[in-house]
């Protein structure tokens, strides 16, 4: 099991990068996120994985196996071949390390639980998608999840991944209502 932060081109835009998270396994797995069970997909030869990313849906919504993120992951792991006349995402992947190690079941569970909590909170207390993406966006989301799960990875990927240094407050990743109302982001 390995956790990656992926970065891909934005669909239809010459400049801009979107970050997402990929967890890979050597065999098929089932993972429960947001009260749904997801079965890993084949991302490349002998690489099964789950792809999770925050998307621009008016609010910053987390989606599992979003089409573009999944294609970008498959492009990287060899599940789809790049052809000059078809769209591609110029995907970049960085392995996340936990206390110097590339494998940590404990941290994988922690990461999934953070995503799980965000799933609930995005319906109860959604974060507005920032105007023109300039604010807490998918790059901030991916890097926040990695940081709160105890992972270390370079946050600056190829291209213009704006706001990758911003962190969404941890209260958005907890599975219960905080004592104080959450800070409203991107308002």
């Amino acid at each position, binding site marked *: 099991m390995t956790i990656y932060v992926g970065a891909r081109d*934005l*669909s*239809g*835009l*010459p400049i801009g990068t979107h970050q997402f998270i990929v967890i890979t396994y050597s065999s098929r797995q089932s993972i429960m996120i947001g009260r749904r069970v997801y079965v890993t997909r084949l991302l490349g030869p002998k690489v099964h994985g789950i792809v999770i990313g925050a*998307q621009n849906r*008016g609010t910053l919504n987390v989606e599992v196996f979003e089409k*573009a993120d999944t294609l970008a992951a498959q492009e990287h792991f060899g599940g789809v071949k790049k052809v000059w006349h078809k769209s591609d995402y110029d995907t970049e992947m960085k392995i996340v390390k936990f206390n110097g190690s590339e494998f940590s079941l404990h941290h994988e569970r922690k990461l999934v639980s953070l995503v799980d909590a965000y799933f609930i909170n995005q319906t109860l207390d959604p974060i507005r998608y920032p105007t023109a993406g300039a604010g807490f*966006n998918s790059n901030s989301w991916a890097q926040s999840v990695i940081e709160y799960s105890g992972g270390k990875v370079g946050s600056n990927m190829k291209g213009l991944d704006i706001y990758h240094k911003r962190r969404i407050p941890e209260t958005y990743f907890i599975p219960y209502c905080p004592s104080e109302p959450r800070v409203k982001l991107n308002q």
Partner: protein
Amino acid sequence: MEIKKTYFLPASLFTLGLLILIVVDYSIRQYTGNLYSLGLPELVWFLFQILFATAAIVLFLRNTRFIPIKSKLIVGSMLIVSGIIIYALIIYGYVIGTRIDGF
């Protein structure tokens, strides 16, 4: 110097081209039933953008054949700046505004 012919006409051509392109792209996405993918292929999408920009430049050069070089440079610079702003507003506005994708 006619600002309408030298500036507004090329700028309008570029704007109109981009607007037609996003209407076609959006229609394809609506038709296929998936807004978040399956728009125009990347190659066609960017090729047409380059074509519209080239057409605007050719029109500008044709309409500024008989004006002094200094005026040509001023209007040309204005046109480049406007082109960048128009492109950002239309293309980024379309992709991010319609939630096709985002940073």
